[in-house]
Structure formats: structure tokens, C-alpha cells
């Protein structure tokens, strides 16, 4: 298994620029997520790592070797397409041994290798079964087995669970992650589902319009987004944006919004004009004493918690509160934000201002 380094990689399709100068590193053994909306360049990036597309410029290193302009066949990686595409006329063992036999590996060695892989995946007892009658979980294991049997340097997967319904998908993603923990294979996984990315990934790259918006550990990206796009894309409901006209000085630890003073993490930068206060739904609290007030528009029951939609002087926001707490629609509510968690965004560039809270995450992001 291997480390993969992407350096200033760019891809143009004719006059269309799909990926602009991407740089990030995937460490050996990591489960790495490429996340973004459709058209953001995540699949193109994956295909360039795999050698299915060649970058217009920039370098790609697999295990220290520059492979940017090499074809897929010389990169020693396994691309897992649709999870369940198996040879229907072969049994499980034949499906897994096929890649080795077609490489001309001796029969005895193949047998040894297949039983090794079957052991890891826990499918030894079904090796002689036809693939037709297998459960979805077993099919996934077989498809994976066929990929790892070659001992590739990395696995690449493009929305492998995209076509499944919610229940089955949840099950499969857990299984996939558990297999990864056992094999420790470097895995690059493309998805547009932020929850899937948070749940499965050791690290995430968030892309938008061909640009890497942020790169890092899921919880840090959630807590300290570098841009408004990331703040909006990660989390459900997403981060609330309260737009206001005001200023933040270097060293300020509060902002004035709509005549009310809000505490914020001490700012390391100054800005004025159109600003946005970003706060996550679970960091909004109701308080009778707060001078900042909003009107409840809707409340949605979610079991343990409820989501309350509130109209404020600075836009509509959503708060997540315990479902036991009573909220009447049309009720006026005093609002407080958990000061330690707030991010201030600069209006024009949609970028998070550096503060004492997020500098650790954003300075080397």
C-alpha cells in the first residue's frame, strides 16, 4: 500500500477547466474521501490518480514515483466500479481468482492467494457457491476480494453505494469501513454525500468548481470551515449564515449585529463591510434574556431532537434543540449563540476570517 501525492494538478477538457491546481496528500492506509457536488471535479481528480485521464499539468506521486503521465495499467491500482458487477456464470472462488489467472499466475499460488483473501473478508465458506444467490453484503465482499487479490497499491471507488436505498447503504458503508480497518489499504472514495464522507473518511477533500476548498479531518472541517461553501455543504441542516454590515478588528472578541453585541473567538484578522456570522444549528440556544429575537416558523420532530426554523432580522436560521422543549409556531424567541463555535466570514470572498479558534485548522489546511 502507498502514499499518494497530488501536486498542482490541473485538467482542461478543451476550453473547459475541470480541475484547477489541486494539491493534497493521501497518507498510506488512509480512507480518503473526495467530496463535492456534481461537476466539482472530484471524479476527474480520481480518474487522473487512476490514470484513466492524464492531467494537463501537475504531478501525481504514488509511493514516491511520479506517475502523472503513465497509463492506468502501469500504476498498480484497483478501480472498484459498481460494487456488484461480478461474473454471473462463475462461482465466488473463480470470480476472485480470475484477475490472477489472467495474469498467468501458477494455479497453486492462485489458490493460496485466494484463500488468504477469503480469510480476510470472511467468505471462506462460500467460495464454492454461485454468485447468483448471494446477499448484497456477500456480493460486495466478493467484488472487493477480486480487487485486493492483486495486492494493488491503492483502491479507487467512485460512488460505489450510490444506487442503493438508504437502509442497505448504511449497512454496506459500515461493512466497507470495517473491511478497510482490517486490510489497512489506501482507499480513495468519491461521493457527493456529506454524511457518508464524515462517517467513513479519515480525511476529506471538499471540492467545488474544480477547486479544493478545504482538506483535512472530518470533525475539524465541520467545526472550522475555511469557506462559506464548505460550511454550507457539510452538516445537515447546514451552518446558519446571518448576514450583517459591520466590522471586526484584529483582536476583537465580539461583533455588533443588529444592535446586539455577540461574543466571538478572538479574531486574528480585521475586516469591515458585508460580513456573515456562521453558527451551527446545535450551537443556537433559546434564552428569555437575550436581546436578539426571532420568530419560530416551523418545528420538525426528529425523535431525540427537533429542528426549529426561525426568522431573524438577519435571515432565516435553523436550530437543533431537544425534542422535549416546547416551541410554538409564531412564538418570539430570544436567541444566543455558543460563542466558542462561531465563525465570521468575509462577505466578498466568502472566506472564514482567521481567529484564535480556527487558526490551528486553517493555517496548515
Amino acid at each position: 500500500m502507498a502514499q499518494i501525492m497530488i501536486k498542482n494538478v490541473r485538467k482542461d477538457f478543451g476550453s473547459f477547466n475541470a480541475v484547477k491546481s489541486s494539491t493534497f496528500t493521501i497518507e498510506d492506509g488512509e480512507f480518503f474521501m473526495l467530496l463535492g457536488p456534481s461537476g466539482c471535479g472530484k471524479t476527474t481528480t480520481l480518474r487522473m490518480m487512476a490514470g484513466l485521464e492524464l492531467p494537463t499539468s501537475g504531478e501525481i506521486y504514488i509511493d514516491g514515483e511520479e506517475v502523472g503521465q503513465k497509463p492506468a495499467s502501469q500504476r498498480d491500482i484497483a478501480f472498484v466500479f459498481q460494487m456488484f458487477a461480478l461474473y454471473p456464470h462463475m462461482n465466488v472462488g473463480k470470480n476472485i481468482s480470475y484477475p490472477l489467472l489472467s495474469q498467468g499466475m501458477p494455479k497453486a499460488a492462485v489458490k493460496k492467494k485466494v484463500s488468504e483473501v477469503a480469510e480476510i473478508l470472511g467468505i471462506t465458506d462460500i467460495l464454492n457457491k454461485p454468485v447468483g444467490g448471494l446477499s448484497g453484503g456477500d456480493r460486495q465482499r466478493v467484488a472487493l476480494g477480486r480487487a485486493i487479490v492483486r495486492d494493488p497499491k491503492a483502491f479507487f471507488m467512485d460512488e460505489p453505494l450510490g444506487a442503493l436505498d438508504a437502509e442497505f447503504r448504511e449497512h454496506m458503508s459500515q461493512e466497507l469501513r470495517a473491511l478497510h480497518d482490517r486490510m489497512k489499504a489506501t482507499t480513495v472514495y468519491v461521493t457527493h454525500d456529506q454524511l457518508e464522507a464524515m462517517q467513513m473518511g479519515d480525511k476529506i477533500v471538499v471540492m467545488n468548481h474544480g477547486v479544493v476548498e478545504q482538506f483535512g479531518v472530518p470533525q475539524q472541517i465541520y467545526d472550522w470551515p475555511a469557506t462559506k461553501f464548505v460550511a454550507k455543504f457539510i452538516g445537515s441542516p447546514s451552518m446558519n449564515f446571518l448576514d450583517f454590515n459591520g466590522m471586526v478588528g484584529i483582536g476583537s472578541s465580539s461583533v455588533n449585529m443588529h444592535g446586539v453585541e455577540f461574543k466571538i473567538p478572538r479574531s486574528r484578522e480585521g475586516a469591515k463591510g458585508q460580513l456573515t456570522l456562521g453558527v451551527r444549528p446545535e450551537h443556537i440556544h433559546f434564552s428569555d434574556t437575550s436581546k436578539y429575537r426571532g420568530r419560530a416558523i416551523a418545528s420538525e420532530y426528529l425523535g431525540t431532537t427537533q429542528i426549529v426554523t426561525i426568522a431573524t432580522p438577519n435571515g432565516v436560521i435553523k436550530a437543533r434543540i431537544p425534542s422535549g422543549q416546547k416551541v410554538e409556531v409564531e412564538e418570539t424567541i430570544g436567541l444566543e449563540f455558543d460563542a466558542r463555535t462561531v465563525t465570521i466570514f468575509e462577505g466578498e470572498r466568502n472566506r472564514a476570517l482567521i481567529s484564535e479558534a480556527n487558526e490551528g485548522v486553517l493555517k496548515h489546511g
Partner: protein
Amino acid sequence: MAEVILKNVSKRFGGTQALDDVSMNIPDGSFVVLLGPTGAGKTTTLRMVSGLDVPDSGDVSIGGHSMKGLTPAQRNVAMVFQQYSLYPHLTVRENLAFPLKSPLLKTSPSEIERKIKEVSEVLQISHKLDNKATALSGGEMQRVSIGRALVRNPAIYLMDEPLSSLDAKLRADLRIELKRIQANSGATLLYVTHDQIEAMTMATHVGVLDSGKVVQFGSPRDIYENPVSIYAASRLGQPRINVLPADLFQGAPAKAVSIGLRPEQIVQGKGDDSIVTRVEHLGDQTRLHLSIKNHDLITVTDAHTELRTGDIVKIQPHKPFYFGADGARLA
């Protein structure tokens, strides 16, 4: 709007019993969501009410009248399908106006205009009114097809996974809008989904279906807090309820075979030792995968927990559910 009653409705397709003696009261002005996995009979139930299929036995009545022998058109229902079906040669405005132009309804042009304006604003498609229906994105087409149902004033709206093709943000917006429209207008709605968030947030009543049978019918809170079986309990709640052998913990009633534990029914910090097998940071919360006496369970903890794989956490059930051998709730 009207009350809709299904009485002992059964339906077979070849060897499959699609609906098995289904009885259900859909009160006037209610928002009923049918919940269940693929093949549970949700869509078939909807088609029984719409008249697209007829029951083998049993009866459907709308507003007190039996629907026996009536075609979909005669039933005064408005349908939205998962797969939008618009008139491709008409503009969005014409598509929305079409149901109102029926000679039976005698809607005045100004009234039609008003309705279209209202509905298109709610569904965020006002700026596309003069586009051809085919010149829209998938999400926009689906909104137009919802709009085409909303401009009417039928006895009941029937919707089959209308939001499943939309992206997450739009789905969240439309959930609130649909709920608001329904609550304000007093419309009766029968809605099919396999998305539990939609069921919990919009429904006044949830009907849980299992292999053609209604296994529980009640408010989302009822089904979440007071499920009748393991099956019903597993329909709602993220992460899913943990179902473990009852004797894993002390205090199980005599006939209990399984214990059901939602995250809030698991107290951390006292009780028996469990080991952390995986920590998933989801942002607003962290999911803890635990193993206790070789059984796996998932619970939720603080977003910034210090716990790591391999740590020991003590856990104890708190007001758990108990189920018998057949999966039915005991306590």
C-alpha cells in the same frame, strides 16, 4: 377535502400478496405517511385509493362514498409520482394551468393566474414559468409536477416519493413547504416514502407497513417512543435502534427475548463494561460503536469526545423496550 377509509383491502399480484387485509382511517385534514422498505405495499395502497388498481376484496371510500367501480378521474384525487410526467410541448405555466382548465371546474382566468403565481412561488419556480417543461432540470420538473397537483383542490393528494429525486437542500426546503401548505389549507394527504426524516417531520400519522400489513398506525412520536414491535421500532431513529439479547443486561422481564435500545436509552458512565470499536465524528454528534459481551451496538455521544477505539465505556439501559420471541413489544 375528505376523510378516506380503507376497509379490509387485499390485493394479490400473481403469487405475491401485496396487501393483506389493510384497514386504515385517513382523517380529514391529516398528513398520513406510509413507511416501509421496498415491497412493503406502500405504493399499492396509494394505487388502491387513486383507482389505478382495484382491490381483490375490501373497499375504499372517500368522503363517505364507496369508490367501487369509479375510475381515477371520477375520484377527485390529485397524484404526484416519483417520476415526473409533464406535458413536454407546454410551458411550465401551461402545465400548471392545465388541471384548472378542465371544463368541469370553470375556473376564471384571473383565478388560474393567482393560483399559478402562488404555487410557483412556494415551489421556487416563478422565474421558469415561460420555459418549456422539457427545458428544466430534473428537480425543477419534479417541482412543476408537485405544483400541478397543488393548484387543484381535490378530496385527497396522493404522493409517491415526490422528493426523492431532489437534492438535499431542496428536499429540506420542500418538506417544510409541503407541511405548511397542508397545515394551512387543511388538505388531506397520503404520502409514500422510505425516508424516515420525511415521515417524522411532516406526518400527522405514520402507517408502518410490513409485507402488505399495517403493523402500526400513529403519530411519529407514538411510533418512535412507543413502538409495537422490533420492526416498527427500527423504522424510525438515526442511528437505528440496537436490538440485543434481553439477558445481556439485568432486569429483563420473564418472557423477553430481545432488548431494544435507542441511543437515549443507553446511559454512559455506569453499568457494564463495553469496548469502543469505532468512533465516527459526524460533526454535530459522534457515533460510538461499542462491543459488549461480543454484541455490537451504536450509540451517540458528545461531538468532541476524547474516547478512542479500545477505550472502555460503562453502559446501562435506561427505560429500554423489551420484545418477545415473535418481535412483538412486551414492555
